[in-house]
């Protein structure tokens, strides 16, 4: 009797452990992938710098580096990818194709996950510097001019601007457990040394 019960329990436990480790593995895979991709992409970035147009970081990638972003005195150093799809954002912050090119006049919008690459946004303060290195090797410096929380159901990204702006977008609140909420944290930075 006890024998049968134990066997049933054994299988139940095995299942629970299996599912548990599988979920943990999945959960751990996300930040691991986010980190590893950045390492690979720094390499791709250097290749892009050497003139390989749209150098893809790994052979089957459907996105490519468009800029390198530096912030918080070099503590943040990451590669910005092309496009804002979920697939792209898993590997790095993504530049929305609909917005201005990084460094170019207009508003350049970069989105990133609040729990991986763009976690640092919550530590940014007004006046902080964000640098963007474009594929041509030019470094563009921006100063944070605005921090805002918006409701994505009721606001629109304004893509047209006479200024040279950079908008960094991530989900808000930073520590919410559920993905897919409507609020967004928006950091707006303005290019330094712009003639008014």
């Amino acid at each position: 009797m006890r024998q049968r019960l134990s066997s049933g329990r054994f299988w139940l436990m095995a299942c629970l452990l299996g599912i548990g480790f599988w979920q943990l593995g999945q959960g751990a895979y996300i930040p691991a992938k986010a980190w590893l991709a950045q390492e690979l992409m720094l390499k791709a970035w250097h290749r892009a710098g050497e003139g390989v147009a749209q150098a893809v970081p790994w052979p089957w990638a459907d996105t490519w580096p468009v800029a390198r972003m530096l912030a918080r005195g070099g503590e943040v150093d990451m590669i910005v990818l092309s496009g804002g799809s979920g697939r792209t954002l898993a590997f790095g912050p993504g530049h929305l194709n609909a917005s201005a090119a990084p460094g170019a006049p207009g508003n350049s919008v970069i989105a990133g996950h609040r729990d991986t690459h763009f976690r640092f946004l919550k530590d940014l303060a007004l006046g902080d510097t964000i640098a963007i290195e474009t594929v041509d090797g030019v470094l563009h410096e921006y100063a944070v001019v605005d921090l805002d929380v918006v409701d994505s159901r009721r606001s629109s990204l304004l893509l047209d601007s006479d200024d040279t702006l950079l908008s960094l977008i991530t989900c808000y609140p930073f520590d919410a457990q559920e993905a897919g909420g409507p609020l967004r944290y928006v950091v707006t930075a303005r290019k330094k040394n712009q003639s008014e």
Partner: protein
Amino acid sequence: MARQNSKRNKPAASRNATHWHPPSTALPATNTLPRLFRRQSRWAWHALLLLVLSFQPALLRAQTSAQEAVDPGQVQSGSLLLRMANGYYAATALDTNVTMRINGLVARVSVRQAFANTGSEWAEGVYVFPLPDKAAVDQMRLHIGERFIEGEIREKEQARKEYEQARAAGKKASLVEQQRPNLFTTSVANIAPGETVVVEIEYLEDLRYTDGLFSLRFPMTLTPRYMPGAPLPDRQGSGWSADTSKVDDASLISPPMVGHSAHHRMTLEIDLNAGMPLDLIASRYHPVTVTENQGRYRIDLTDTTVPMDHDFELTWKPVALAAPRALAFTETVDDEPYYLLMVMPPAASNDQALLMPREMIFIIDTSGSMHGTSLAQAKKALQRALQGLRPIDRFNVVAFNSRTTPLFTESQPVDTRTLELAGQFVGALQAEGGTEMRGALEFSLQRAASESHLRQMIFITDGAVGNEEELFSLIERGLGQGRLFTVGIGSAPNSWFMRKAAEVGRGTFTMISALNEVGEKMDRLFSKIEQPQVTNIEVAWPASMVASAYPSTVPDLYANEPVIVKARLTGTPGNSDTVRISGNTMQGAWHDEIVLKPTGDNEAGVTRAQANSAGIATLWARARIESLFDDARRGRDPVEVRAEVVETALTHHLVSKYTSLVAVDKTPARPAGDPLRKDQVPNLLPYGQSANAIFGFPNTATNAAQLMQTGCLFLLLAITLLLLGRRQRHAAAA
């Protein structure tokens, strides 16, 4: 600077509210945990911790939603980039009752908007809503309880002044203004807490009769529009968009959108007197019940109320022998007779398809507002269109959102390779970004036209833009010998854009709002544009009379489309006076004549009829106003145009760009000291659309934390099982 400070505080404060640490309210729950943890205290505490962590998602979910309700209203934007819509949590709820009376070619529609103030303060409700693009809005009534006040027509500024004075004085008042020919705003001032005030709007419209079908469309919501241009510092309205350099009233036409609402429901009843025996009555997007009573039909929604999230469309088809060939309706106002004429040219036979080679350019909108069902419809329409190409044609596909992406730099011959490339290109299209139509239109219009190929552009879009006039000018100027056809897509397309862009593009428009009608409607469009047009259409009125007729030049007609003319005549026509309509068809010259003198009521079963009909003068005035704006676009002095529009609109009691209807109650209702809150009533997001896609925000959170927690929960259960087993063995041993 003060603004910056106050804004900094807000996110910080709410951040604390959703911090990771389990809030204290979670702790009592631990008391109810099973006794089993008592002995193995260390294990138990670890497990307990894990369990509490696993409960986190639910707790935080509750908190985030509480926060959603507060944060946006408080975080007032002043941001360079993003504007918040004010009053999203409007305490003013809105429901709508629509009644239509259709007689022959004309529909009179009453739209009753009920504004219910569910808040505890006095409220002003502001509601931006769509109407059919040919709607001639000529009446408004403000209903307060049992009584009502009839709206008066005034010049726009004067009407607003009267409304604002009444609002300040605490009097009930309502104002109906036009933002676009198919977009209006109702404002109602001083609704008491708990009170419902009804604003009733009436309009007339003439029906569409094409391909043997009569049709009528009623829009219930709008697709949020893309506003090109740079933001301006000042704003006129409280919409989600700032006014921009290209759409100077963007803040007035960008009402907040909601995905769900307990209100925003509509009732609809239709009385249809077609004046001819019918073969079929169908509602494409809403189930209806039809009851016949002596040749008249009553049409009701099967569901008593429907959510206002997609267009209603009713079509009816006369039995083949009764299909009208010529109809004339007349009304005499101030001794001047007004006419509405409809004449159907003879149908071309099927073997007369156009043999001239064509250059087909398919332009497809892939902006954020097309995301979801709309893009699926658009792609299917485009794939269908590609199948309709003939080997003698050339073609190209031009996709656009914020940028224009052509498939080929130049149009290509139709062969297996190019069709395969096109198929792949269309299959891979995704919807995101803005709606910069200009680039795509310029690309398509400015390619050098070929002598041997007739250029036909098929423009597939939801028309969700705020700069319609700019685009109409662009099309009109660049068209040359080409033709532009619009295919309106989605649950709530911009009907004015579709009709007018096709009109200035000398083509026709087609509306597709469901995947299952793509094939049928695209095939019909293709057969239409392959057949020769009826050209050089002239309308000759009796020589003894002066006629003011619109359209002033009748455009070339596509197959199965009628000539429709609205006219005002001087003098009363005699018994033998006729109007002669002529044109060129493939079979040669064609003409038809209609006796102008009314011979009696519109009789059922006749294909030629003249009848008296109320509202013809109003429809003529509406056509005249539209024609005046066409003149303005073609360079006529805007001051002159404005004066004539105002004169026509005031005479015929019509709402227009320059005139509004206003109603003011006599006695003040709101006590002098009580505050008045302004509520911008939101619109329902069109069915099948995603706010994130429209407003351009990607999803920026991963589910890593949730996965980790689920993992922990399962491990915890495994451990619990292990502990339970041990305890049982201990017990057995003892």
